[in-house]
């Protein structure tokens, strides 16, 4: 049976209200403060070590993001760790919060479809993430300009923009996960814990499990004749189920222009290559295209599952 009227009626109103809520809420301030402090710290430490070794790379600006200076990890690995946290903080009570406040039936009694509420909330979460990330980017770039006295080149800007898109897609995956759990669990605390559990699984344990799984499927990592290629491939496939791996790959290729491949490489494949020379930006984008597509696709798939579950949910509390 067909419904009449656009499912998008009201998305704008939901988007505006939810974005305002996120951006002014205490929760957002706390997580943003955490991200800003650690990320700026990492970038600052990177700047100090870049100054000591200046002139080693043509992509000085990008090293702001990738260089790690003990005891701080690099800017990108911090982001890989913290973006999911921010996304979960935004999304974990998106739907169950409306039920618990008993605002759900009041909102859905207005002439909108449920689609508009869910989509509006998701887009508002993405927009808030984007606003946070952009301000972080600008801060780091500003810091770089001040302390290095060097503007980023055109190619560096393109690569940083690409990294921003990848970060947003990565955040979108975790936002979709958080919203999914906010639909499944009525208690926001349970939803938050479930989302954090998944986050911990991928952030810490996934790379520990990968070798075992690969060994179970493909045999030991080393054979008499050298590394076991089958093992490496399986291990990599398993690793790439994790959005964290996809994001780390994408960040590496975009911000380290010298990166030519993201997996095991055979000698025959690098014949004639001038090792250590940077790739043009377009080639780096081609290299991480599967990663980027994978992130966006998993975001859409998880959101679709959330959408279906929400459509089937009973409105009465």
């Amino acid at each position: 049976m067909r419904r009449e009227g656009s499912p998008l009626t009201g998305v704008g109103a939901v988007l505006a209200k939810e974005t305002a809520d996120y951006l002014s809420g205490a929760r957002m301030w706390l997580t943003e403060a955490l991200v800003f402090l650690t990320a700026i710290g990492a970038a600052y430490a990177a700047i100090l070590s870049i100054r000591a070794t200046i002139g080693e790379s043509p992509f000085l600006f990008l090293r702001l993001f990738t260089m790690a200076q003990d005891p701080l990890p690099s800017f990108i690995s911090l982001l890989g760790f913290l973006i999911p946290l921010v996304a979960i903080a935004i999304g974990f009570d998106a739907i169950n919060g409306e039920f618990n406040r008993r605002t759900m039936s009041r909102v859905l009694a207005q002439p909108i479809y449920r689609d508009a509420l869910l989509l509006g909330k998701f887009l508002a979460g993405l927009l808030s993430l984007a606003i946070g990330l952009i301000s972080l980017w600008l801060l780091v770039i500003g810091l770089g300009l001040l302390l290095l006295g060097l503007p980023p080149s055109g190619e560096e800007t393109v690569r940083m923009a690409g990294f921003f898109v990848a970060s947003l897609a990565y955040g979108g995956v975790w936002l979709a996960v958080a919203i999914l759990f906010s639909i499944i669990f009525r208690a926001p605390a349970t939803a938050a814990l479930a989302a954090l559990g998944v986050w911990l699984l991928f952030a810490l344990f996934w790379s520990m499990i990968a070798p075992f799984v690969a060994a179970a499927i493909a045999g030991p990592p080393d054979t008499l004749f050298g590394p076991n290629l089958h093992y490496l491939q399986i291990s990599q496939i398993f690793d790439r189920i994790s959005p964290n791996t996809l994001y780390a790959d994408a960040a590496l290729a975009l911000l380290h222009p010298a990166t030519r491949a993201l997996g095991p490489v055979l000698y025959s494949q690098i014949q004639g290559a001038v090792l250590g020379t940077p790739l043009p930006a377009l080639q780096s984008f081609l290299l991480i295209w599967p990663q980027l597509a994978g992130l966006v696709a998993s975001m859409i798939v998880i959101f679709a599952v959330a959408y279906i579950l929400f459509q089937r949910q009973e409105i009465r509390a």
Partner: protein
Amino acid sequence: MAMAGEPAIRAEGLTKRYGPVLAVDGVNLDIAPGEIVGILGPNGSGKTTTILMLLGLTEPSAGRAVVAGFDPLRQPLEVKRRVGYLPDSVGFYDGLSARDNLAYTGRLAGLSRREIDERFDRAMVRVGLADVGRNRVATFSRGMRQRLGLAEVLMKNPQIAILDEPTATLDPHSTSEFLDMIRGLKADGTTVLLSSHHLDQVQSVCDRVALFSRGRIALSGAVTALAQQVLGGGYVIDVEARGAGIVERLRRLDGVVRVQTLGADLYRVDATRDLRAEIARELASSAALVGLRFAAPSLNEVYTRYFQEVNDAA
């Protein structure tokens, strides 16, 4: 707009099944424009589920509904544009002001900024919250929240207002104020459907009532007609008299259906017509008649009696 003569709300065989449980079982309902109709029943008798189906928020398992001339299943947006809904135990965004809360739902309802401003002020005056429109809802009492919910319905300027348990959590004073506001809706020409288990309150505002029991409409009609049907008489007279054998003497009177002893020297007579004169004449001769009071047929009584009979029969 609903055509003249067309009912504001019509339900035909509306049914909702949750797994093996039949929550609503073939409900038929016809509500004319401008009527106030109460749906009454114990908790879990299917009132809220029926309302949600009328709004298109829950899909019926069988049957169909027409609300304001539209099918809530296929044209939910058209229905919800014309219907104002006050859910039971209504909630708001505590961190936002009353105005921001209502402006949000106003925008969702497609009102322009100017319309929201105008209608908000007017609605808040009508529900008696004009002074606190800019305050955060967190500071509101239950009664104020309920009024704010009604203000939201008023802002929508609805053809039909559906109020689910509007007085369930209110104290007696707020309840009577709230009922006055509901009468105000009728004066605007709005059709009102309200659900409740506070029977006596509902009785005073409703043109008609429908009693829900286990997902079905057990009885429906005007309150006096129901009293006639269930109590056997439409008139209830409280008699206070001293003396012996009063019950028997009252029973002998023509038109008396039932006589109950309420307390010492206090009797209640159910009658098919106004028997006050006859009772006075009958008792004046021997017993000492102390008081004679006409008690309106109470919905509460209809209700208790009806469910008593249903349970006895079961």
